[in-house]
């Protein structure tokens, strides 16, 4: 399978690769432009402003509640053509985005993910980096109300987007309805994956306010928890808020 996509941004230098939509498996969480790991770029080639990456992960095809379909097959190839829009910025881009209701005008290195910028530039450490390659879901946030993995979305792609992180679900004192459900069920173990699960659940509930056990299992299936506390997490989301 081969796909082409154009991104009007300067040369994307960070990981020297790009992969197109799809890498993500299952659930309400989707990838925007998925990035391969810096450590696993051996299948990526760069020619001028065109970056070609062969996807090596084995994934499936899943229809998510939000109506988006993820599309990746092993061995598929994605081609991204990059068109510089402001050469004076070099390897950086200017972006405007709204994070948790607050407007930001940022100049960001093109090779850094949205997760990185949220954490290291804005100090929003609630968004966790786990695998950093679109597999574990710890970095899940909402972009325009759809749950995505922010480690596989470049910050420069977020221009004009509305972003919600776990810090934006509530004021931190009075919990949001889904945070309260997690509280009531004590759906936390070590807690590192919890923000990702919360954001995926929030994304699911925006599309399906009364999910069944099977709905929840599917919607959260793109998230890993090495403490293996799925039982409580699933229970917290069943039936909505």
């Amino acid at each position: 399978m081969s796909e082409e996509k154009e991104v009007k941004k300067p040369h994307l230098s960070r990981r020297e690769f790009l992969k197109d939509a799809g890498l993500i498996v299952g659930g309400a969480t989707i990838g925007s432009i998925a990035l391969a790991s810096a450590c696993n770029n051996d299948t990526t080639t760069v020619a001028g402003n065109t970056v070609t990456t062969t996807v090596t992960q084995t994934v499936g095809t899943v229809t998510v509640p939000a109506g988006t379909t993820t599309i990746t097959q092993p061995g598929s190839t994605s081609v991204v053509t990059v068109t510089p829009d402001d050469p004076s910025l070099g390897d950086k881009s200017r972006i405007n985005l709204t994070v948790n209701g607050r407007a930001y005008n940022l100049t960001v290195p093109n090779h850094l993910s949205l997760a990185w910028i949220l954490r290291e530039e804005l100090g929003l450490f609630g968004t966790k980096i786990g695998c950093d390659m679109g597999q574990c879901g710890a970095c899940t946030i909402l972009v325009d109300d759809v749950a995505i993995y922010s480690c596989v979305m470049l910050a420069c792609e977020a221009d004009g987007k509305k972003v919600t992180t776990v810090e934006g679900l509530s004021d931190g004192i009075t919990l949001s309805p889904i945070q309260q459900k997690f509280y009531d069920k004590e759906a936390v173990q070590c807690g590192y994956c919890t923000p990702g699960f919360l954001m995926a659940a929030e994304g699911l509930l925006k599309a399906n306010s009364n999910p069944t056990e099977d709905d929840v299992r599917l919607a959260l299936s793109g998230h890993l928890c090495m403490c293996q506390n799925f039982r409580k997490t699933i229970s917290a989301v069943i039936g909505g808020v």
Partner: protein
Amino acid sequence: MTLPVFNVAGKPENHDCHIKEYLTGKADYTGDHMPGRKLFGAMKHATIAHGTIKSIDATKALNETGVKAVITYKEAPTVLNQTILYWGQPVVGIVADDWYTACRAINLVDVTYDELPSITEADEALKPGAVLSGKREGTNLAPASFTRGDVDAGRQQADIELETIQPWTTTYQHSPIESYQALAWWIGDHLYVYQGSQNLHGNKSAVVNYLEMPANKVHCFARYLGGGHGARLSNWESGIAAFMSKAVYGLPVLFRETKKHNMLFHIRQYEVKSTYKWGAKNDGSLVYLDAQNWVNGSGAGMSTVMRTTWIIPHVKWEGAGIYINVPDRGSWRCVADPPFALNMTMAMDKLAEKLNISPYEIRRKNMMPVDMPDQDSPYRYWGSKEVNECFETVARESGYTSKWHAPGQNNKRTDGRLHGIGIHCHTDSHGSVAGTSMAGIVLMQPDGTALIEAGCTKPHNSPTMLVHFTAETLGMKYEDVFVGDWGNSDTTLNSGSHGGSAFTGAGGSAFVSAARDCRAKVFAAAITKTPLKEIAGITVDDLDAKDSEIFYKPDPTKRITFRTAMNGTPPIAGYGTGWAAAGGGTGGGGLQRPLFGLPVGTAVNAQSAAASVAEVAVDTDTGEVEILGHWNATGCGRVIFYEGVMSQFGSGTELQIAQALYYGDVYDYATGAVIGSQFTETQLPTTMDIRPSRHNLYPIEGDDHSAPLGAHGIGEPVVGSYACILSAIYNAIGVWVDPDHGACNPDKVLKALGKAT
């Protein structure tokens, strides 16, 4: 059994003290500090299994934009080594502006090696003349042995004998979602390190030694960590981060392992291979066991599973940990024993079949009663033992005896799949009260609320558990006791390591002692206040406390609040150290209350127990196994933090389901190389693999007379799911599936059925 009534402990409504921090993104893990102010470190790893570094050329890396420093074994001799003992051993560190630049730069470092012969297959290590890995002097083996009675005599008594070889059990990576990392910075000649370690004060000691610094100039922090699993006892990362920061003049450096290397080089779990020779009488009673156990990559050696669960008069047991040119292994969750328990269950089921009795019957026949002492010197009793109740609970709740059928017989379901059911139980060393050197501080504040100062991090609700211990002992409401400072080596005493579930005993007993000390001091203040001071001859021994009020025992209407007692009194600190169940004697350990006629102070065993039943349906066309029902019971002693217990228990169950059915092997035995570097490749289970409605959990309470408030540790629960699921598959298809170092996935089931090669 009638258990003492708790006022605070065990209440399901008591939530984790820091749960809102988790849910709102405020919990600060190692990497969650100093936005925009820190540099990042990454590591290059060896590409040979055994040899010596000949040269390192980092010129190209240092010329890369954003790269700040390179460290090797020359700059960091206590944490990096010129000698390579396994593929993937760290060799060169890079510091750069961001982590991705550091990762890219490590590929620009040229390392050459003088390679030596290597050994990467455990079975090869057992052969005469095997290549030496270099990990141990003159050998690859760490042998161990154990003898009880006379096996030759037992052999003469046996009516039935069984000899079986249990192949290598499952191994898997247990990489937490948060990769191993450490953040270090210097201010003058003082070093500050944040690493999510399961042993805060142990980490400090290690850093002191790595840097060869005085302890007063090393300051360690560990508040939250993403997944402990008994494997976050590594402190090498702190040493690396400290040397990296030193190389950039003390600037903060966050060193983080790549996920690929994190997955396999620290925490890949070991597997076990066993041979068993069993002897039994026709009535099913065991008379001897002649066993060998080989452990790949760990010195765990001998499991307590076999020694402390069954009555076996004659035992000979030998084996060894095998150290080859692969990374040493981490502990299993359910620490050492799932692989031993699996091999034991498989062998015992085979013996039951030979005796023509069910797996339930052979276990019931031979299980040690709760009031029986250990069969080995020094013949100690247990503070409490719940394995029998666990076993009967899962058998009863699952309807095991009515559902069991002979292996591979009478098993066809209406949907064409084969039905199977398996049962398992064991005791082991989890939850032992081991904390004689641990200590705690309880601080009573002028407003009558209490703080605990806990020298621990927060893997799986530990400070919350200590709050329960403290509130119950003080006689205060749960909401009046808070976690003060924790995870700070400067302001806390060592509350113990979180590895292996010992923390409940170690930290718990320390804080019970500290709370008793604090309470006595507050009571002394209370008798100076109205109305208690008006009681003639009153002493602190006349007082008790409940719900944050102190009352006169002969007349409970005479009472004051803790707040009133503390009015005008400076903060009061209580200190205490823990005790060990096996300590006994004058050390303050052993039995805290009489048991079986034994006096206080008698040294006893402190162990936990588990039993499990799994019911499965096996599709013989696809090899797929579906869990239809799962019943798990675990012995807790007293439940202290209820939701914490249920989280640990449930997660331990799910983990072993994954070990039984999903985890893939991600390691090349031929070369010692890592061949799986991502979560997807290691086939981690997801929510699609777990149906909460099919999993039934039964925390079985006992009252451990040696433990703080009677509680075992359940930080990593004893769970037998791995063994009982494989037993259930056998019951369905009538053939044992060979784990072959990995989970029993459909391919292996089909192979067992002769439908695949």
